[in-house]
């Protein structure tokens, strides 16, 4: 295991050190350095301190564990790998991601999962343990977003305008009580057995990361939100 004290180092130096290291790395005293592990494929990285924006951007198979909060654009356009955040995550987590997993123990800021997409065997997932801010899953085109609301004490699981512009993928909410309106182009319904099977697999991995009991997490009603059709916005534009 390579241990790097990153105090005072810029993102370029940190990423060069990471690329030179073999296998497992720990970054200590991180304070806002951006682009950590960008594009990396074969590393296991643990971060102490606050990583900067675009943590794991274009990640291509590496795994990252953050033992505190993370900032904005975590996993921007990531392709493969796992990012685990033990605290909260800032805005636009999973921005345009196309593969891999982001697991957040706490809350997510605005626009989590914005423009997530899926193609062929690639299907990304973002699981948020607490609550999510407004514009959750904005323009979602594929993949899965899950909001668990653990410890939410009756507060709304999602902020305003969820699923705006959604045209693919799935959103799971661990509740049967929707507190905000959803757009006309999506449908919210109770999760089916098939849905719950899919969810159980994903949450098994999630619970493993955080030492949670899967059966307790699953023991609640789940709502599924999907777009009405493959192209729900067709009638909003002129055909040409």
């Amino acid at each position, binding site marked *: 295991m390579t241990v790097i004290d990153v105090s005072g180092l810029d993102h370029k130096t940190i990423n060069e050190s990471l690329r030179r290291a073999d296998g497992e790395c720990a970054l200590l005293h991180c304070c*806002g350095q951006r682009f950590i592990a960008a594009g990396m494929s074969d590393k296991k990285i643990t971060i102490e301190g606050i990583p900067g924006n675009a943590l794991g951007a274009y990640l291509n198979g590496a795994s990252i564990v953050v033992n505190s909060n993370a*900032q904005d654009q975590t996993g921007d356009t990531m392709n493969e790998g796992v990012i685990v955040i033990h605290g909260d995550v800032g*805005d636009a987590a999973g921005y345009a991601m196309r593969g891999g997993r982001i697991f957040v123990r706490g809350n997510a800021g605005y626009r989590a999962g914005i423009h997530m997409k899926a193609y062929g065997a690639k299907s990304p997932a973002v699981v948020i343990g607490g609550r999510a801010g407004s514009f959750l899953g904005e323009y979602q085109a594929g993949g899965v977003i899950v909001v668990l609301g653990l410890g939410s004490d009756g507060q709304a699981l999602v902020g305003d305008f969820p699923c705006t512009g959604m045209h693919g993928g799935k959103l799971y909410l661990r509740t049967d009580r929707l507190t905000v309106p959803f757009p006309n182009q999506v449908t919210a319904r109770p999760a089916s057995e098939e849905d719950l099977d899919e969810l159980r697999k994903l949450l098994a991995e999630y619970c493993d990361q955080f030492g949670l009991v899967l059966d307790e997490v699953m023991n609640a009603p789940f709502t599924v939100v999907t777009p009405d059709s493959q192209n729900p916005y067709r009638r909003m534009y002129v055909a040409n």
Partner: protein
Amino acid sequence: MEREGQIRIPAGCAIAALVSRDGSKTSGEAITNAMKPMRDRSNGLGGGFAAYGIYPEYKDFYALHLFFDSRDVRKGCEAFLKERFEIVQSEIIPTRKIPEITDEPIIWRYFVAPLQSQLKSAQLDGDEFVSRAVMKINAQMDGAYVFSSGKNMGAFKAVGFPEDVSRFYRLEEYQAYQWTAHGRYPTNTPGWWGGAHPFGLLDYTVVHNGEISSYDANRRFIEMFGYKCTLQTDTEVITYIMDYLLRVQRLTLTETANVIAAPFWSAIEQLSDAEERARLRYLRAVFPSLLITGPFSIVLGFNGGLMALNDRLKLRSMVVGEKDDKVFVASEEAAIRAMEENVENVWSPAGGEPVVVRVKEGAF
């Protein structure tokens, strides 16, 4: 160099603030540290700070900070000031020569009180009189620019990275109960000393990250009330909107936030509280031209506190944290951790949700 209107520069910014609710004072060191992890958010074309409570020995006088292009301009401007104000102290603002900051203008400060005879004949209060004098200098006096004009506070700004601007102005030598800071990455306008943040009028200062799309609508409206937008920059117009709503229209901070970052009509209609619905409808109906659209996160500083606010869609990031008597605001949590490693209650306010912090009465 090319000024506003002659050049458009495409581009982010960094903001930070630190306030003690007890009014206890700190040097400029902590707020400078906040800007270091956010260096990538600036490009060296502007940095600045506002400090509150720094001139206790002159607390009853307006502290005017000015940039001059030449000695002649300064002499002319001083003659203008002497006709209107009693100048109790005038001095060069102390700076430190460092290689990172170059091409500095002549930088002076004046502690002034409006002449009673002038106030009487103009039938104005001191604040309005000072505000008009500032507008006159900035709009009409070529080569002179007032960049700070409040009592017992001051803005310090330059072309450079914020941490260098802090060293240049020797901010470690000042003691303030509240600091705000900005690192600039200019969008649209070139970086020059006057265009750096904070923008200020009287004791109101604004640091801003974003690019508002309502600039011209806001400018046209606010210029009807005597404000002159000389810099084509959105932060200047935000500062004048704050002054107009808070000082002239006497709105509260929350009301001001409800005007500039008004909730959507759909959100207002969904409210169950009829009185609140009516209040928000009223504010949107009376000040439609002061709705600020597009991305912004701002910290408004004033004597005795601050307000942090995001645009209603929250298109920019902003984090708040607390520790003992201190409240911290910044574009990134890392910046807060750089000021106070053991910060508590870190949260991100929702879009349009004002965070108001006031210093204990009598402590500033």
